């Protein structure tokens, strides 16, 4: 059943709030020139507190979420979000801090940030960390901005950024924001960077190389050090998209692989909830070479306590109004402290074992074109189902009927009809077994009764939605009585 919008539930003069009395006799009209004051009243609904709760709980019920079921969304690392992380919501010493308070009144907060900076340095093998970016793509922005400024400082304007054709869409988009030309290189037969192709496009106009490792196929780029040497030979910088860091925790570090910049997705790797699309946190780690380029402030420590350092020689400036998503940082801090080095290793081990196990269970029904060095996720190809007039989209939608979230689909672009599956370490063998069983059942359905898939989903709050209609008859706000 469709739920009415909150605007349709409004009743004139109904009230859902209380406020203290003002106790100061003053009229707004007397304070401002008439022409500044608003005459029309914004159509904000009038409902009770109970109306509000009923409405949002009713619609929340239509969401899939981690506590409800498996969420194998590739590249998104939808692991369980420990409830202890949310203690931050109820501690006033975290929630009720203003970013421009005197430094000596936020020593606790700065300590958490300082500690987290250090832990992330150790985990990534980088020289310095900034926690300011608030999302993965924001970390990328910060990183590419550093690349831009690194060359600019040397009096050079380098115009090209290289990346493999398996890269996330944010990589080329971020480069374009810096006016740089994106040079996409084709992956080789193993799904990795083709070194020969890289050599062909490499010249003095290359500013940097953006690589996800393990890459978006879940494949570890085994020649990463050779790549780094090549990139460094023309004084370009190595950027690592850290979306897939989960696969390597405690075992392999971006710094040791030769990366100059890496972004962290605290909301993926370090278990902070994604909030239906954010807030995340996308801090970055950098090598010695570019540590003076980090955004300011960063948190430092002296005899007198913790302080905010604004003086970095080549800083790119700010990328956020204040310090980044502090409340998300506290959650990641709690997670890292609870796991320690042993726990982080277990995360990587189980993430990799779960992915390899699930891949094995789905083969050969769901072919995986790139199987060597699979780490935390894998990309299956749904092309063979075309024979039954079934697309990957149909498989994804059918999965919803069975109570699972679908994998990431049609990405990366280099696998046709891609199904990108990332189970994460928190899922149990039983969950993976059941999921595999359903995937096989769906494969069977595709062959025997493809209509079942093409008409899926049927058991969800709405059936398949018409996206073309949404664009053609654009309706992006409630029309009231217009």
């Amino acid at each position, binding site marked *: 059943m469709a739920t009415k919008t909150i605007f349709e539930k409004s009743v004139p003069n109904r009230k859902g*709030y209380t406020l203290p009395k003002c106790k100061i006799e003053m009229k707004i009209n007397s304070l401002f020139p008439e022409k500044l004051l608003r005459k029309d009243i914004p159509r904000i609904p009038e409902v009770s507190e109970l109306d509000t709760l009923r409405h949002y709980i009713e619609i*929340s019920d239509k969401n899939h979420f981690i506590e409800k079921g498996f969420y194998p969304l590739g590249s998104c690392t939808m692991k369980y979000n*420990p409830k202890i992380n949310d203690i931050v919501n109820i501690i006033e010493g975290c929630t009720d801090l203003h970013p421009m308070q005197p430094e000596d009144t936020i020593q606790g907060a700065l300590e958490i940030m300082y500690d987290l900076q250090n832990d992330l340095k150790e985990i990534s093998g980088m020289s310095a960390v900034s926690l300011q970016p608030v999302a993965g793509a924001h970390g990328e922005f910060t990183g590419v901005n550093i690349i831009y400024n690194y060359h600019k400082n040397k009096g050079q304007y380098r115009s090209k950024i290289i990346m493999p054709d398996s890269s996330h869409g944010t990589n080329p988009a971020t480069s374009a924001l810096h006016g740089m030309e994106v040079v996409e290189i084709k992956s080789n037969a193993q799904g990795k960077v083709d070194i020969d192709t890289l050599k062909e496009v490499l010249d003095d106009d290359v500013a940097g190389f953006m690589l996800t490792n393990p890459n978006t196929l879940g494949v570890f780029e085994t020649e990463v050090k050779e790549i780094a040497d090549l990139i460094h030979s023309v004084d370009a910088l190595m950027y690592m998209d850290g979306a897939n860091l989960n696969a390597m925790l*405690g075992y*392999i570090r971006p710094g040791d692989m030769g990366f100059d910049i890496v972004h962290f997705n605290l909301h993926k790797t370090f278990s902070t909830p994604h909030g239906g699309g954010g807030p995340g946190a996308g801090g970055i780690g950098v090598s010695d070479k570019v540590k003076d380029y980090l955004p300011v402030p960063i948190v430092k420590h002296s005899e007198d306590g913790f302080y905010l350092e604004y003086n970095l020689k080549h800083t790119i*400036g700010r990328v956020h109004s204040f310090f980044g998503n502090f409340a998300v940082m506290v959650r990641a801090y709690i997670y890292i402290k609870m796991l320690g080095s042993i726990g982080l290793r277990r995360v990587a081990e189980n993430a990799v074992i779960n992915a390899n196990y699930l891949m094995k269970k789905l083969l050969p029904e769901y072919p995986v074109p790139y199987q060597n060095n699979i780490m935390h996720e894998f990309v299956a190809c749904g092309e063979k189902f075309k024979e039954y007039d079934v697309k990957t989209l149909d498989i994804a939608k059918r999965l919803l009927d069975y109570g699972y979230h679908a994998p990431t689909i049609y990405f990366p672009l280099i696998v046709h009809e891609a199904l990108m599956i990332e189970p994460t370490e928190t899922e149990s063998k039983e969950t993976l077994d059941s999921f595999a069983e359903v995937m096989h059942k769906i494969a069977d359905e595709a062959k025997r009764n493809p209509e079942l898939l093409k008409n899926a989903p049927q058991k969800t709050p709405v059936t398949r939605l*018409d996206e073309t209609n949404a664009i053609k008859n654009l309706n*992006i706000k*409630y029309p009231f009585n217009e």
Partner: protein
Amino acid sequence: MPFISNTDEQRLQMLKDIGVTSFKDLLSGIPEDLVLTEPLHLNEPLSELEITRRVKEISSRNINTSEVVSFLGAGIYDHFVPAAVGYVIGRPEFYSAYTPYQAEVSQGTLQFIYEYQTLICELTGMDASNASMYDGATACAEAILLALRHNKKKKVLISSLLHPHYKEVIETYITPLEPEIVYIPQKNGRIDLEVLQKEMSDDVSAALIPSPNFLGVIEDLESIETIIHENKRALFIVSTDPLSLMLFNPPGKYNADVVVGEGQVLGNKQNLGGPLFGFFAVNQKLVRKMPGRIVGATVDTNGQKGYVLTLQAREQHIRRDKATSNICTNQSLCALAATVYMVLMGKRGLRAVAEQSTIKAHYLHDRICQLDGFEPANTSPFFKEFAVQTPIPPDKIISKMKKKGYFAGIDISKYGYDNQLLIAVTEKRSKAELDAFVHELENMVKEV
């Protein structure tokens, strides 16, 4: 191990099923020198009880704004957040969901975003809103990027009365595209219209005007718009406090092309300045140039109403280097808090919050300016925040008043406003608190 379900026995069985004997076998193709032999140098794992105590202990070393009387503002404000807001955003149905890529199992998220977009349009008087940006500063930067893309001009006019941190973020964002940035100076707390007029030319891409501005002053948007739109291609961008729009004419009424701002005041805690969220609204002709996610209503195969992410061809995952922005993850849950807050408060509650904040700010302003040595920094109309010239350096006032249990305001001397203290007042401050604060200020000045 915490949060991992599989037992050691299961792991062994799974490894066997994979066809290997140990985890290390799965790393076999990776150069040996890349794999750490020693564990990382991190602390010993803490139990839930230990980390709870630790976080509480560390947090107790902060002084939070609930322990003192706070007059801090400059973009982040201590407004009251009703308990029901926290309750809704704490539902795992909302907070542990991902971006709504599979619409059929994400109707909750998609519908609230649709409602959020509607509410932002109602407040700003604009035609379309996206699903949120990172914060007010990046929303400003993205608005200028939109303008540079839209009209391909190179000159950007920015009010010098924009939050100084926002200026820094904008410069970081747009410098690589090599625009010419001109800051329009102020005159009595508002931008100098003569200078604005002089700087207007054919090569202007956009003008960004905050109102209320950094000093809390409401600008004369009507006159400003007339000047800017003399150049028909130039975009008029307004950055604003959404609560102010319950009292003052919305930028939409003045033909703003883009309206952005910091949304934290709508139902979000201060959180040391993060997470925040930026709102972003445009007029009809710019809808397809907007950055970020947009939700649209449509129908399912049974003709039932539903919601989807729409106009995705603007976005990075489809358009890659031709996208309108690189933004992917935004601040969805903060936008949910804002939605629930606005709905709970309703049109009258929101107006009451805006009115009380304004009246209390004006009361405090008048009382402080009666004290010896305190002068208004300007005489322009202000919303809930104002700057005063102080008889002793603002940082001294701040540190003395801190000992008395007040966060007295923000020293804006360092931003070029010599000897000025920026004071914000929300509905949370009582008349008694304001009177006591004035009393303490008076005593303090006498002592010096």
